[in-house]
């Protein structure tokens, strides 16, 4: 599993790997918001948690179709599937690689962009924790969607339609935790639910992803 993970990370940072694409997208969306809603600090501060979460979600979505599509095109996928690595571990490694290349940079960059949106300083830790807990779930759900749509023409569009509704609970609890943090309310409950979703995804979705891959590989 470590071999596959390091290969995917290496591929992501080399030329044409698309590393930083999601981060750049996140940056641009967040920077565009003040142009759209105006520069009043009160309004921006109020919508900042939601904006940051929606932007992070869209940025994660952007690179999902690459998770399996590239391996499918060049024929690596059947070779990986016949390797001694169980498909469930393959799914987990792919999700982890996606999180490290997409989710982790978003978590790190979010507080910086929070400043642009006048997010109060007290909310920063909550935003950081909610994104750190929520983005792995985004990668795991996305990997499942990618496995379902690999090999389909226009699969990317279908992938968004499948994955976005599944992202809703993560978005609700993630943004809620960040909002409560911003208003100085206790945010433990949404964070616990978010952690629960993340753990549930990590426990169940690799199996679902492997099952989907078995069908799409036929």
């Amino acid at each position, binding site marked *: 599993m470590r*071999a596959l993970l390091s*290969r995917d990370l290496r591929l992501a940072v*080399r030329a044409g790997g698309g590393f930083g694409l999601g981060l750049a997208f996140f940056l641009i969306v967040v920077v565009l918001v003040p142009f759209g809603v105006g520069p009043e600090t009160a309004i921006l501060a109020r919508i900042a948690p939601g904006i940051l979460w929606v932007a992070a979600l869209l940025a994660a979505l952007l690179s999902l179709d690459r998770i399996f599509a590239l*391996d499918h095109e060049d024929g690596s996928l059947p070779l990986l599937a*016949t390797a*001694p690595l169980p498909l469930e571990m393959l799914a987990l490694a792919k999700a982890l690689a996606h999180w490290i290349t997409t989710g982790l940079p978003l978590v790190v960059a979010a507080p910086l962009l929070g400043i642009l949106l006048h997010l109060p300083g007290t909310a920063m830790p909550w935003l950081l924790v909610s994104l750190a807990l929520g983005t792995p779930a985004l990668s795991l759900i996305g990997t499942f969607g990618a496995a379902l749509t690999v090999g389909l023409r226009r699969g990317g569009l279908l992938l968004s339609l499948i994955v976005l509704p599944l992202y809703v609970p993560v978005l609700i609890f993630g943004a809620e935790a960040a909002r409560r943090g911003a208003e100085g309310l206790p945010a433990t409950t949404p964070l616990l639910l978010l952690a629960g979703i993340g753990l549930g995804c990590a426990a169940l979705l690799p199996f679902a992803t492997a099952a989907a891959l078995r069908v799409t590989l036929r």
Partner: protein
Amino acid sequence: MPVLTDVSFRLAPGQGLVLRGANGIGKTTLLRTVAGLQPPLSGRVEGAGERAGYASHADGIKPALTVTETLQFWADLYRSDLSEEVFDLFDLTDLRDRPAGTLSAGQGRRLGLARLAVISREVLLLDEPTVSLDAFSVKRFATFLRDHHLARGGIAVIATHIDLGLDLPEMDLTPYRAAPEARGGSDEAFL
């Protein structure tokens, strides 16, 4: 939808089998089934599974990785060692630091086949392994199969149209073709 019916063969260590038949007869389907990529409609495959290494007509080469990195990845994934011998066997010594994306079709194919020497599986399932190889490379590959795989008790099932010069038993799949009615009518084909 059945493609082939009543296919049966058994191979002992050190034996190879060449699958023959026209395009579309089901050579790839048979190999994928033995490799475990798709389940047989009925019947069973014994002894392959964990011991099998599969190679399709696509090599699964990542343009951004070098030749050495590619082979090292497969060695790590299969928990085996990458020996110098592999580079010699497939004439890749001068290419080891080249990004795989800059290789020619034949060189890429040699890299894809070198993977088979790295993963050291007892049962090799090879789908058109010699596509885009020149005569010299075909000979090298045949030597690898004979001296490094079959001679060491390996098994190989090879779908190919050319003569590898290995004097292996051949199986023509034409008689095993599923009857048209078993394949389903044209209405069913779109269901």
